[in-house]
């Protein structure tokens, strides 16, 4: 699903990622860990095409990203469900409209979009909040709305950047269980997190980044 081949990225001669190789197979779920500044964000940005690598090749869903022009970036991003640490919800939209945004962009009509949004909200257990503004929800609920938005388009791949960063352990566990449920129905999931306690309790491979270098068994041979 995601393949990095000899990928390096530097900002103003400061290396953020150095000769990175890994392969996340279709249907896999993995964690990406490392201290802040270790290159986690850079790695996610390269997958989202918010950045281009200085060298090497990033392949997502069998598509070499270097082949994509600027105009093709939106279509690439629509294939990926993205979950942020700070949820990135629009506070002047209702919960429903926030979740419906990816569908609206893809041109769904109201009826189909309504059905899918409610299914996604049901999945994260917030069906009764669709008319509210995200600002009146708790941070755990906000994060789940963010997840509903990421899955509403039924993506093959979910990327999450510190999805439990602002949550207490109980809520974090809940969010992780959601990701596991999506993974169980075939969605590939890559979660950047430094919540080591949580990660170690879960049976998923861990990609470790240290100052731009991959370490751990995952780095060597995929797994």
């Amino acid at each position, binding site marked *: 699903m995601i393949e990095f081949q000899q990928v390096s990225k530097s900002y103003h001669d400061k290396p953020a990622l150095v000769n990175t190789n890994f392969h996340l197979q*279709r*249907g896999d779920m993995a964690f990406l860990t490392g201290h802040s500044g270790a290159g986690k964000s850079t790695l996610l940005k390269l997958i*989202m095409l*918010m950045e281009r690598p200085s060298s090497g090749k990033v392949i997502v869903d069998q598509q070499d990203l270097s082949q994509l022009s600027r*105009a093709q970036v*939106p*279509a*690439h*991003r*629509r*294939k990926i469900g*993205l979950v942020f640490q700070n949820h*990135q919800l*629009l506070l*002047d939209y209702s919960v429903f409209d926030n979740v419906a*945004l*990816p569908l609206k*962009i*893809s*041109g*769904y*009509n109201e009826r*189909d979009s309504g*059905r*899918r949004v409610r299914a996604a909200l049901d999945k994260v257990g917030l069906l009764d909040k669709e008319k509210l503004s995200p600002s009146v929800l708790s941070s755990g609920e906000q994060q789940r709305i963010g997840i509903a*938005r990421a899955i509403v388009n*039924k993506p*093959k791949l979910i990327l999450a950047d510190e999805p439990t960063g602002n949550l207490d352990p109980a809520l974090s566990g809940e969010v992780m269980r959601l990701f596991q449920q*999506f993974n169980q*129905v*075939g*969605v590939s999931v890559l979660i950047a997190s430094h919540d080591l306690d949580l990660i170690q309790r879960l049976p998923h491979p861990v990609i470790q980044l240290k100052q731009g270098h991959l370490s751990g068994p995952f780095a060597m041979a995929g797994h």
Partner: protein
Amino acid sequence: MAVTKQAPRNASRTMPESAGKRLLREHKEVALQSWQRLWLSPLANLLTWLTLAIALTLPASLLLLLSQAQHLGQQLNQEHQVSVFLVPHATLEQGQLLRQELLARPDIAKVTYISADQALSNFKTSSGLADILDSLTDNPLPATLLIAPENAAQTPPVVAQLSQQLRQLTLVDQVLVDMAWLDRLQAILAASQRVTYSLAFLLALGVLLVVGNTVRLQIESRKQEILVIKLVGGTDAYLRRPFLYAGFWAGLFAAGLAWLIIQLGVSYLHDPLLQLAQSYQSQWQLQGLGWVGSLVLLATSCGLSLLGASLTVGRQLRLIEPQ
């Protein structure tokens, strides 16, 4: 990939919609949404529309006045003629003969002979001095030949030369050519035309800048939304659309306001100008914009606003990229 395998169950019902139909529906939605957004800050929008309307009103009303003044000028030019007053003792036959001779000249298009009697009766009806004129024993008016030169407007020197030659004829007492004021009118109109065009150009530029700046502020205030839309895969066309519609609506409202201002101005000026025209025995009246003028105003306003929005929106959207 069980999830994606299941997905088409719902999606299959979405698919039959054709691309054209979908685009039309999306445009309808965005048009409606951007319309609704206008009324979130009605006062600010009204001020923008008024600014645009004033920028449109000035050149539009000048162009309106100018086109009607040119029309009047042409009318006067067509009526322009050389008046040849014959000597008092010239007979009817001599006058008719002279008319035939003059008609044969290539530089003369038309000659009308007005006998002394005819001139007197014309004067009686137009002046309202019938009683006084009746008391005269002699007719004080001479017979007249009204000569319309060929292409009078284009060749004033030819007309001057013609009148010089006419003066030398024995039967001719006096020749009147009053071209100077017509020349002046043409010159004034030509100068006003250039002033108006320059002004129109500058104010059109002003409209572009005002709309561009308004759209830039709107984009700035919706930056967060734009970032999120970019991250979830919104295309540039999708992002541009609401701002282009905002520009279009601004153009529409500005045109409406400008139309109102111009029509009010026309009705305010109509009576005094009518009196002025009547004092010159002219039937000329100040007209409003009419259908064609109104449509041109509408198209210009909407076109300029759309252009202003589209010139800004692409550049501004490129500046907002998720970091």
